[in-house]
C-alpha cells in the first residue's frame, strides 16, 4: 500500500483495535509489527477486562472501554474465551471493607454497578477463599478473555476492510513516516505509535518504561473459582512505580486452569525469572486461596507492561513530531483500555470530539520525571 492514510506501528491489543477503528471509518490503514501480532505485552497478559478507579480519568476511560467490550463480545469467536465472570475485589481487613464501600460510591457515579459482600456472602460466592477475610466488592460487569486470539480477530476484520498488516520492524520515525530495519521509508498521512513498552525506543523523551510482571498457570481442573479475584491492595501495588511488589490476583480460565499473578518490578527488559519475587507472589496467592498450594503448575512466564510515571496512559498527538499520534503507556490495563484508546485516537485523527474527556491522557502533559517516580 503506497501512502496509506494511517500507519499504525505495533499490532498488540491497542494497535489492533486502533487499526480496526480507523478502517471502519474508511481510512486506508497499514499496520507494521516486528514480531507476532498479539505477541508483545498482549501475549503475556492475564486478559482481565476490569474497571479501575485509580483516578477519575482512568475510571471514565475504563467504563467506556467496558461498554465497548460488552458490545463487541457477542461477535467474538470462541477462541477469544470471553467470559463475563466479573471481578471480586477482596477486603482483607475492616479498613479495606470500608474502602470497598467508598469504591462502590465512586463506581456508581461512573455508572458501574457493584455489590458489597460481607464475610459470609464472600464465603458463599467463593468457597475457596480463606476464611477470615472481611468481605469484598463484586463488579459483575468485568470480564476475562484470551487476548492473542482477539488481536487476530480484530486484524482479520481490519484486513477485510482493506487494511494491510506487514511483518517488519520499525527503526525510526519522522513526521508522516517510518523507516523499516531494511532502510526503506514508509510514508503515510499520519503515524500512530502503538508499540507497547518499546514505544520509547521510537519516540525520544516519551515517558514510557517497561515494568516486568510474572504469571504462573496451573493444570486444568474442575472450575471452583467463579470470579477474577483481586485484593483491594492491588491498586497500591499497581500505582506506586517504585521497588518490587506483589499483589494477589487469581483468574479462573474457561478450562478450569488458574492464572496466578501479580508482580511488578523495574528491571528494564531483563529476561528470565526473579524467583524470589515469584515465591512472594505465590505465597500471597496461596495464603488467600489455600487450595492453590496443591494445584499443579505447568508454566511460568514474564511480560513487560508499558508504564508511565503518573499511572495514566499516553493517548493523543505528540506535539514534538507533526502528524504523530501516541497510543501506549497503559501499564497493567492495556487489554481493558484498548477499545477506548482506539476511539480517542480515531476521534483525534478525524478531528471529532472524543467520547470521553481526553486531556488527562495527553502524552505531553506535565509529569514527574521517571527517575523521581
Amino acid at each position: 500500500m503506497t501512502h496509506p492514510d494511517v500507519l499504525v506501528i505495533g499490532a498488540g491489543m491497542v494497535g489492533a483495535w486502533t487499526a480496526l477503528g480507523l478502517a471502519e471509518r474508511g481510512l486506508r490503514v497499514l499496520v507494521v509489527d516486528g514480531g507476532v501480532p498479539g505477541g508483545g505485552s498482549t501475549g503475556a497478559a492475564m486478559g482481565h477486562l476490569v474497571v479501575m478507579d485509580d483516578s477519575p480519568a482512568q475510571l471514565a476511560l475504563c467504563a467506556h472501554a467496558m461498554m465497548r467490550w460488552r458490545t463487541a463480545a457477542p461477535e467474538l469467536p470462541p477462541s477469544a474465551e470471553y467470559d463475563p465472570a466479573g471481578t471480586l475485589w477482596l477486603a482483607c481487613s475492616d479498613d479495606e471493607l470500608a474502602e470497598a464501600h467508598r469504591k462502590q460510591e465512586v463506581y456508581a457515579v461512573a455508572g458501574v454497578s457493584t455489590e458489597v459482600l460481607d464475610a459470609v456472602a464472600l464465603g458463599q460466592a467463593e468457597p475457596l477463599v480463606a476464611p477470615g477475610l472481611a468481605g469484598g466488592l463484586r463488579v459483575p460487569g468485568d470480564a476475562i478473555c484470551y487476548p492473542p486470539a482477539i488481536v487476530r480477530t480484530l486484524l482479520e476484520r481490519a484486513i477485510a476492510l482493506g487494511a494491510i498488516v506487514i511483518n517488519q520492524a520499525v527503526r525510526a520515525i519522522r513526521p508522516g513516516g517510518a523507516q523499516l530495519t531494511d532502510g526503506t521509508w514508509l510514508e503515510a498521512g499520519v503515524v500512530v505509535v502503538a508499540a507497547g513498552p518499546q514505544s520509547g525506543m521510537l519516540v525520544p523523551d516519551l515517558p514510557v518504561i517497561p515494568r516486568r510482571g510474572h504469571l504462573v498457570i496451573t493444570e486444568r481442573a474442575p472450575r471452583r473459582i467463579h470470579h477474577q479475584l483481586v485484593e483491594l491492595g492491588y491498586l497500591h501495588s499497581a500505582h506506586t512505580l517504585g521497588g518490587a511488589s506483589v499483589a494477589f490476583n487469581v483468574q479462573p480460565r474457561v478450562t478450569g486452569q488458574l492464572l496466578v499473578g501479580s508482580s511488578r518490578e523495574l528491571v528494564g527488559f531483563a529476561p528470565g525469572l526473579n524467583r524470589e519475587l515469584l515465591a512472594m507472589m505465590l505465597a500471597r496467592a496461596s495464603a488467600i486461596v489455600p487450595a492453590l498450594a496443591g494445584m499443579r503448575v505447568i508454566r511460568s512466564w514474564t511480560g513487560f507492561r508499558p508504564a508511565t510515571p503518573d499511572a495514566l496512559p499516553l493517548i493523543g498527538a505528540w506535539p514534538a513530531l507533526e502528524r504523530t499520534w501516541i497510543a501506549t503507556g497503559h501499564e497493567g490495563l492495556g487489554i481493558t483500555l484498548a477499545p477506548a484508546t482506539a476511539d480517542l485516537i480515531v476521534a483525534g485523527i478525524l478531528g471529532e470530539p472524543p467520547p470521553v474527556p481526553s486531556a488527562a491522557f495527553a502524552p505531553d502533559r506535565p509529569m514527574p520525571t521517571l527517575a523521581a517516580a
Partner: protein
Amino acid sequence: MRRRRHDVVVVGAGPAGLSAAATAASMGRSVLLLDQAPRPGGQIWRHRAGASLPARARHLLDRVRESGAVHAVATVVDAPAPDTLMVDFGGRVDLVHTAAVVLATGAVERLLPFPGWTLPGVTGVGGLQALLKGGLQVRGRRIVLAGTGPLLYPVAASLATAGARVLAVLEQAPFSAVAKFGTRALRDPHRFVDAVRWRATAWRSAWHHDAWVVRAEGGERLEAVTISVGGRERRIACDWLGAAAGLVPRTELARLLGCALEGEAIAVDATQATSIPGIWAAGECTGVKGDAAAVLEGEIAGATAAGDGGGMASRHAVARGQGIAFGRQLADTFALQPALRTRVTPEAMLCRCEDVRVGAIDPAWTARQAKLWTRVGMGVCQGTVCGVACTALYGWEPPQVRPPLAAPPLAAWARWLTDVDSPTES
C-alpha cells in the same frame, strides 16, 4: 524439605545414566541417580520386580549397586542454576546442590498425527511395549505395529511371546535402505543374534517395508486400520495399533538449563560436555544410537564429570566415534518418508492437551505465532508431544521451556524459590 549436596547428579537411569552413575561413584564421588520411573533401567530395561533382564542389564545394575551411587525415584522440576536442581522426590521437593550434572534423559517416541491416532487402542510402538511391561494382557489380541527403525523388532517379538496376534509390522523405510543397513549393522554379532531371535519369535507376522498407517478407524475405540504398503491401501481389523515415527532425543531439562542443541539432540563434545560448564550429557538425549553407545557415552560422561581430565574420553574415542557413525546410519536409513507428513488431514488432532487440529495451523506461521493464536503446545505436556510433531511437519524450533518441569504442586515449587542460594544445611 531439605537441601542435599552431591558431587555428581545423574538424571535418567537408562543405560547411559546407569553407566555414568556407576563410573563416577566408583571414582569416589558421591552420586545421586534420579529417574522418574519406579525402577532403574530406562526405556529398554524397564521391568517389573522379579522380571528377567538380559545379562548386560543385570551387570550394569549390579555395578551401580556396588558403586555406592544413590538411586532415587524423582523428577527434576526446576534448575535455578546449573549447580542447583529442584527435585521432586514423590511429592516432596528438595534442593540438590552439585558440582556436576549428567543428563541421560533418553529419547521419546516421535508421534506424528494421522486420522484417528487419538482413538483408544492406538499407542506408540515403545508405548505398547511399555503397556505390556506394565501388565497389559495381549493374549489373542490382534495387533498392528507401524514405525521405523530397529525398535520394531523387539517390540513385535515381545508381543508375540506374550501371545498376541501381531498381524502386520510396518516399516516406513524402503526395503532397499533397510537391507543395506542390515548387512552392515548385523556384522556386529550381538545385534545379529538379537535380530534373528526377534524375527524368529514374531515369524507369523507379515513384515512390510515402505509401509505406514493411513488412518485408524473406530467408534469408541480402535476397530481397524487402513495401511499403505508400497503405495497400495488395505484395511486390517485389529484391537491395538502401536504407531510412531521413530525416536527423538528428550531435551526439556537440557533446554531449561540453556544447553545448546544440534538439530533435535543435545550438542556435546568428545568428553560428552554440553555448552554449559558443569553439565554433561550421554545416551539417546545426545542422538539416537542404541543402548551400547549409551553405555559407552555414560562411562565417558561419568568419568569426565567426576574429574578424570578426559582420560576415559580418549581411551574410548574410537568406539565413541563408531557409535556416532552408527547413529548417523540409523538416521539416514530410517529418514522419514514425506508421506508420513502428507497423510495428515485437517481434521487430525495435533495438540491433544488443547484440542488443536492440524487444519487450525498455517504452516507459514512461526512456532510462536501458532502457539499464541491457536494455543498449540500450551497444555499440560507443554508441547512434549505436539512440539516434536510440529518440528517434523513444519520445521519449527522446539518450544521454549519455562519452569517448572513436570507440573509440581504450586506450594512444593514455591517454597524453594526464595532461598535457592542460601548456604547448604545438610
